[in-house]
């Protein structure tokens, strides 16, 4: 079983030198902690920034400098700022190499649900619908099951979708999975987890199981 940090570390391995990457709120934010020093990437923040730096020290907090999660951050030497329209031109125009996002549900066809639970919780899609439809590769990090132990990796999503057939890879506490036209394939099983654990916790059909 991977914990939050191990999931983030696994996602970090997918990031290659020179990539432009957008990290979602939550566990995806942790991914930047696991990028090796010899890998130089550029983080995009969809509120209008390329080259996002780490969180600030107390002295460096700047209310005009936040990320898409509204957290205070810092800039780097290579940073550029731009409008929301230009930011999403990058995202929707296919210029971002990878987005790593959280999810409520993922289906075996790569459908993603992560923005609302009807009647209960509404966050809004923010930039997620734009990201999943525009970015070259979409990786989801999520717990394999919800608090009740029900699978979040489903045949069909039950919640309103963020995007249809948009997820390329899924990283959960149990392992890493690839979704393509043939279906879902296990790429890697988390240390301490077994094929049986995955079988029990997955509703989606896995072709190499």
């Amino acid at each position, binding site marked *: 079983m991977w914990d939050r940090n191990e999931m983030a570390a696994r996602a970090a391995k997918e990031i290659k030198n020179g990539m432009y990457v957008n990290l979602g709120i939550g566990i995806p934010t942790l991914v930047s902690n696991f990028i090796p020093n010899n890998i130089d990437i550029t983080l995009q923040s969809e509120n209008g920034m390329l080259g996002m730096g780490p969180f600030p020290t*107390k002295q460096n907090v700047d209310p005009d400098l936040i990320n898409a999660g509204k957290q205070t951050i810092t800039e780097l030497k290579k940073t550029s700022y731009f409008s*929301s329209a230009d930011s999403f031109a990058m995202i929707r125009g296919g210029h971002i190499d990878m987005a790593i996002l959280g999810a409520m549900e993922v289906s075996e066809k790569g459908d993603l649900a992560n923005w609302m639970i009807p009647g209960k919780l*509404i966050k809004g899609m923010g930039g997620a619908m734009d990201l999943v439809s525009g970015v070259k590769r979409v990786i989801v990090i999520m717990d394999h099951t919800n608090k009740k132990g029900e699978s979040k990796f489903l045949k069909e999503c039950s919640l309103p*979708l963020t995007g249809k057939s948009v997820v390329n890879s899924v990283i959960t506490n149990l392992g890493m999975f690839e979704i393509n036209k043939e279906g879902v394939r296990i790429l890697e099983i988390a240390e301490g987890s077994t094929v049986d654990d995955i079988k029990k916790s997955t509703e989606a059909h896995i072709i190499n199981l």
Partner: protein
Amino acid sequence: MEKVFQSAEKAIRELIFDGMKIAAGGFGLCGIPEELIDALKVSGVKNLTIASNNAGVDDFGVGLLLQTKQVKKMVSSYVGENSEFMRQYLSGELELEFTPQGTLAERMRAGGAGIPGFYTKTGLGTVIAEGKEHKDFNGQTYILEEGFFADLSIVKAWKGDEEGNLIYRKTARNFNPVAAMCGKVCIAEVEELVPIGSLDPDNIHTPGIFVNRILVGKHEKRIENRTLSE
């Protein structure tokens, strides 16, 4: 044409009416037109439709106008940090046209650029696409989104001059440049009014042609999520 006004109250006077459509700059509490929002609150103008990515928080930003029930409808991508927003929406008191963040930014730009509609893949296969025209280009399906046209744009910039030329600072730019474009009238509030000629002509983010009125405001710049490095 004198563009400089002495206060937000004076700047909005004669421009506001019940039921009007407003485009507001800002992302969360960052780069929001604080004084213009206050002036709208004080004015008591009602039944507003406001396009703004978020609605601030309960007691700051556009959230202030939700508290006073001056808003009939929001056009937004995110409700997350505003419990009153979520409550009014779930109870049916408030209309909400959920619009993906990039689609909202592009709709504002389109409205300002004379583009009544454009195609995008964003939202395809989701509730966002329901009832919208679908069209194929090069074997892929896209949906039609419409330009957003506002009666009034309210934006916040860092510096501005008497011609209405504006520059923004860091991520406080966000929706402000596109919000400025799509209104019949645009009012900008700035931290500093500088003499004409002091802004670098190569680096003016919003040319004065988009700005009809300008005023200097005081800005609390409240931080929503102060996150520090360890």
